[in-house]
């Protein structure tokens, strides 16, 4: 039914690339999901049911990995034989960290503002643009097979994605009229 040894691109019958066709990915995902959904095997043997749970989990994991740019980048490096070790703490490029520190300072100042909307929008756009720029850099290094440089970009993206998530959370609080500074 599902070959668990396939890589995620093969699973969805997509060419290996930095920018897989997202519509096609979603369509292939839904089709596969229907064939492996555990509900379809409710009447089958216990072994068959267990397998279908495993297949469904594999298909989900594959979909989410190819959908999100950062997870996709990490996966592309793995396919290229380079395992990104995020746990290893690295003293990174000081300039990058300094800029990160400033961005976080801005976010924390923003939380204390009476009308943070404009600044929040500006920061969201800035982080979004940075993320796009980093992903483009990643793609260039990946295509040139410069895996070490590509990995450095992936590490930086990790910080930006975290920041983007925090900003999105602030935005949804704002839309719900909740106080931002509730830590």
């Amino acid at each position: 039914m599902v070959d668990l040894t396939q890589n995620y691109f093969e699973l969805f019958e997509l060419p290996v690339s930095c920018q897989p066709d997202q519509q096609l990915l979603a369509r292939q995902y839904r089709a596969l999901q229907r064939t492996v959904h555990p509900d379809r095997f409710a009447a089958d043997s216990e072994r068959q049911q267990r397998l279908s749970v495993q297949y469904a989990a594999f298909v989900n994991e594959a979909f989410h990995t190819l959908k999100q740019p950062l997870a996709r980048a990490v996966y592309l490096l793995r396919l290229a034989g380079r395992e990104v070790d995020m746990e290893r703490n690295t003293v990174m490029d000081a300039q990058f960290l300094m800029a990160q520190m400033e961005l976080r300072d801005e976010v924390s100042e923003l939380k204390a503002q009476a009308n943070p909307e404009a600044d929040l929008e500006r920061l969201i756009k800035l982080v979004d643009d940075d993320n796009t720029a980093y992903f483009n850099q990643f793609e260039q290094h990946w295509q040139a097979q410069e895996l070490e440089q590509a990995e450095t970009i992936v590490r930086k993206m990790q910080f930006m994605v975290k920041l983007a998530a925090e900003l999105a959370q602030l935005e949804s609080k704002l839309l719900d009229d909740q106080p931002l500074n509730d830590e």
Partner: protein
Amino acid sequence: MAYSDKVIDHYENPRNVGKLDQNSHNVGTGMVGAPACGDVMRLQIQVNDDGVIEDARFKTYGCGSAIASSSLATEWMKGKTLEEAATIKNSDIAEELALPPVKIHCSVLAEDAIRAAIDDYRSKQNHDAAPAA
């Protein structure tokens, strides 16, 4: 996962939060980041003529364990010589704060920050001591 009382204490009452003048001759700055969680830590030391750390400051954007680890690090560094401070190990920090295994990397981050601050201070001294070209 529950935080230990010591982590909560440092998180709620962080010691030595702030900033020293990065450009000062006797200040060393360590910047480190943890890609795994996106945490960023800045740790600074001010060293007197006897090589003793007379002030230490930090600013950390991260989880409670990362904040507590850097807060404790500044507390331990104050009053120590550079050589003594350089011997502070992440395992000592982790033990003192009773960090669970998944949070050990926070204490590693603090140790890296201590190293980076000391290295920065030393490179400033070497640089300034070098004869003018």
